[in-house]
């Protein structure tokens, strides 16, 4: 299994509070992604990174920001959490260790509840 961890694994927070989720990889992969998973919607891309300090928006980026100051860490921040951001968040990585592999490897997920 790819070395991907997410923290925290579960979080309950109140509307209007800031929240930061962390994704950490030990694979030295270039690409990192944040998705949210909601019933009936599958996985939707929030933001992704193609290198340190290089990030871009996905299809559902409103209300989220990201940062990547090191290859191994990719942070997702909800500046002011809303109930519509209650979801399961997955981090994924995609590698090019000498050869592009194209598939993505997923972390265990973070279940976020905004009350």
């Amino acid at each position, binding site marked *: 299994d790819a070395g991907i961890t997410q923290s925290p694994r579960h979080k309950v927070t109140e509307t209007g509070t800031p929240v930061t989720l962390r994704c950490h990889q030990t694979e030295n992969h270039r690409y990192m992604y944040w998705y949210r998973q909601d019933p009936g919607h599958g996985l939707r891309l929030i933001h*992704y990174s193609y290198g340190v300090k290089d990030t871009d928006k996905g299809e559902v980026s409103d209300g989220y920001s990201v940062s990547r100051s090191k290859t191994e860490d990719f942070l997702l921040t909800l500046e002011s959490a809303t109930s519509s951001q209650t979801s399961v968040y997955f981090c994924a990585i995609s590698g090019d260790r000498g050869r592009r592999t194209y598939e993505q490897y997923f972390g265990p997920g973070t279940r976020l509840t905004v009350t």
Partner: protein
Amino acid sequence: AQSVTQLDSQVPVFEEAPVELRCNYSSSVSVYLFWYVQYPNQGLQLLLKYLSGSTLVKGINGFEAEFNKSQTSFHLRKPSVHISDTAEYFCAVSERSGGSNYKLTFGKGTLLTVNP
């Protein structure tokens, strides 16, 4: 932009029966195709992938999929399912063009339930 349609949201089958989970995609360019499986309360695990070459792809746990370019399909099959195959299955596509081949677009998932 690409899109993925999984034609069945739920598929109930009996143990040892064959199963097919259907996936169709739309894209203006050539694609890479993937199937992932998600067991309850876990992350997604890669089942198999099609990048090029033979259109019949074999994956883990006895699953296989066939790429059909003319029908823009990538259906997942298993000849005999087990209780342990109960999970949600996701089809995903990535375009082979320029710098966009690092992004995946997922279908909404098919819940496979294997009954005894």
